[in-house]
Structures are given as C-alpha cells and as structure tokens.
C-alpha cells in the first residue's frame, strides 16, 4: 500500500453547476460533497502523496492553519467507503 491515493476505478469527481457543488459519481450513485471534502478530493489525482495533498491545501488556505488532521480524517473515511484506493 503506497501513500499516494487515487480514485477507485469507476469513480468520477466533477463540479456540478446545477448543484453548486462537487460530486462523486459512481455506478448508479452520486454523493454531493461539502466544500472541504470537495477541496480535498480535487487534490487526489493518483500522483500526489498524502503529504503533498496537505501541503497543497495549506498553501491554498493559509488562514486555515494546519490541515493534516482534517485531511487524514477525510481520507480515512473515503478509504473506508472505498471511494479511494492506495495502490
């Protein structure tokens, strides 16, 4: 298991104007993501490591302080839901 997450096969992440939010699409299902979940998943591209994702988000949201805890919590949940994998 690496420390580089990627979306599970068959999952697609995209912005939906009609819902004014990011969504995760998968076979016959759709999850509407809140702002922070959307921002984190936008960084998951199969190339960035966990540490790089945190770094990138902290650069985008400097006023938020350390994001390691929030990112870890979300990535753990997303892994548990089998939305993302660590190949």
């Amino acid at each position, binding site marked *: 298991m690496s420390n580089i997450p990627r979306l599970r*096969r*068959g999952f697609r992440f*995209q912005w*939906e104007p*009609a819902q004014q939010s990011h969504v995760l*699409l998968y*076979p*016959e299902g759709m999850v509407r993501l809140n702002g922070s979940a959307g921002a984190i998943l936008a960084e998951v591209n199969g190339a960035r490591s966990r540490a790089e994702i945190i770094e990138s988000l902290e650069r985008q949201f400097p006023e938020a302080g350390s994001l390691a805890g929030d990112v870890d919590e979300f990535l753990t949940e997303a892994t548990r839901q*089998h939305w993302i994998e660590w190949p």
Partner: protein
Amino acid sequence: MNGAQDGVGPPLWLLAELTYRCPLQCPYCSNPLDYADQDRELSTEQWLDVLRQGRAMGAAQLGFSGGEPLVRTDLPELIAGARELGYYTNLITSGLGLTEAKVQAFADAGLDHIQVSFQASDPELNNAVAGSRKAFDQKLAMARAVKDAGYPMVLNFVIHRHNIHQMADILALCENLGADYVELATCQYYGWAFANREGLMPSKAQLVEAEATVNRYRSDLLSREHPMKVIFVTPDYYEERPKACMNGWGSLFLTVAPDGTALPCHSARLLPIDFPNVTEQSLEDIWYRSPGFNHYRGDQWMPEPCRSCDEKGKDFGGCRCQAYLLTGNADNADPVCGKSPHHDRILAARTAADHATTGLEELIFRNARNSRVICRS
C-alpha cells in the same frame, strides 16, 4: 441554467429506455404489458437532443436501458454524446448481443459502467427464467470482458421464489467474478411481475433465510476487508410502511420511454395519467410545468389516511403504481402501509406466497405473443 422552481429541484437522474425490443423473456420484466404494440422509437438525433436538454437542467447520472439497449445500433454514438456532455453513463444490459469488441468500443466512447443482469447462479435455472438456452454462458463471458476492460463490475440478480434459495451461490459467483457491486433486487410487482406475482413472490420464510444468508456473507466480507458491496432490495410486500418511491414523484428521476413519453418512473405508464412526450415539449416544460409531472408533487392530492399522517413527508404515501394496481385508484395510500384500509390485499398476497405452487414453467413469459393476448383480453 434554471434552478429550482416552486421548490422543485432539477432531475438529477435520467433513464433513457432506448427500446422495448429484447431477446429475453423474463417473466418479471418491467416493460409495459402491451409493449409489443408500442414499437415507435426516438431517432438518434432525438435522443441526443433529450440528453443535451437533461444535462443542461442538471442531470448527472444517465442510464441506458430498455428492453435490451444493445439492439440499438446507434448506441456507441449515444454513449459518446453522453460522455461529451459530462454524464456518468450506465449501461444496463442482459449481456446478450454484447461482444468483447463492443465492450472495448463503448469504453473508448466514454461509457463509465456496464451492469450485467443475471437470472440465477446456475445455467439451468438462469436459462429457464430468461427463456433462452445460451444466456448464462454468454453472461459469464461478458461479465469477465467488462472487468478486463477496466470497468467497475456491477452484477444484478432479480430475486424471486425460484432463485431466492441460491443467495450463497450467487454471492460466491459474484465474488469469483470479481464484482465490485452486487444488486440482489427482489422483483417489484409492476408490469409482467404483477401479472406473475403469485408465481414470483417469495414466502416470508424464504425471505428470512435469504436475509440471514446475505448478512452472514456481508460480515464475512467485512472481516476480510473485501470491497464487494452487496445491496439487497427486499420486497416491500413484507413491510408495514411503504418505500419513499423514487424519492418522491418528480423530485429526482426522469425516465424517457422508447417513444419519447416522459415519466416520473419507469412503470408510471400504467397509470391513467396523460404523460408528456419529448417530441412535443421541451424537457424543461415537461419537468417543471406539465400536468403529468405535477400530478403527485407536494401533498395536496393526498386523501386520508395520508393527508393527516405525520409520516407523509417521509414516504410521500408510497408508490402510486402500487396504489393503482392494488386499489384501482392511484391517489390512495400504498396498501403496503399498515394504516391503509386496503392493507388486507398485501396480507392476502403474503398468505398466497406461503401456499403458492406455481411452477416456473407456468409463468407468463414476456414475449410479443403473450403481450398481445393479455392486452386484448
């Protein structure tokens, strides 16, 4: 872009029933009983236009179904068009008519997911239910091809009294094939399944055993950290409260039938309501303003016991089609509800399921001859 109008949100799911044609004859088919006399189909350009309009309104999930959608030779073109528009596209197929080359060509066109439906876990029963002698082997081959091409694998089994004892075998087969999702969908009794209900509905004892088997398998998967997800849709005839059908009439789902008739759910065609057609009106007019789609929105239409019930915001009074089929009036509470004065009809169906002796071969199979016979009488 248009947002919500009068509290009505956009249709997020679009189901395109491309055709009623199908090489199989499942006795629980959800197509209308008179499908044989409804052979008009939208053209490629008309379908692409429907997809464009739906996407502009906000639809994100798109299902291609039927009938058997593979009989439409323009399917690759429709898939490519849908992908370009940004849909997540699902192909719902029996696997008949599929080839490895097509599986690959669809992937290249941008198809996201292929769901292959099975009738049972072994060839004899599968083929008997499907009314086809070579269906099972073809399905297995295509399930493997789907996986090899890199799609997520979703296998669907329609469950009834003749295969419900196979749960453990079905799940083992799915795991062997490498399925990501398994849908064990008990028949919903509309269309052909309603005509065959006595011969399809499992008994309570069968259901209890099946649920126990599925739950055992689920916890086994969990302990192995296996990602296969098992969805078991149990028959609402054994519930005391109805399902929140389609998440509410005209709230998320929009179905377009082969001839362009727009419906709030794929069985609503059986209701005595005039539904609009995409060849005559824009999708936006249909969704937000047509009498057909507004018919059962909100709760003003509800008679008692729903009208004064504090659960009406939760289940919307249940399924209109079920209310119509079982009580003759689609406004009534879904008889599945214990508060419905027609609940005895559900109880009678349960009793009948305990004593049913209808053999598989006695079911009315979905084919053109039976369609015409039933709909003439």
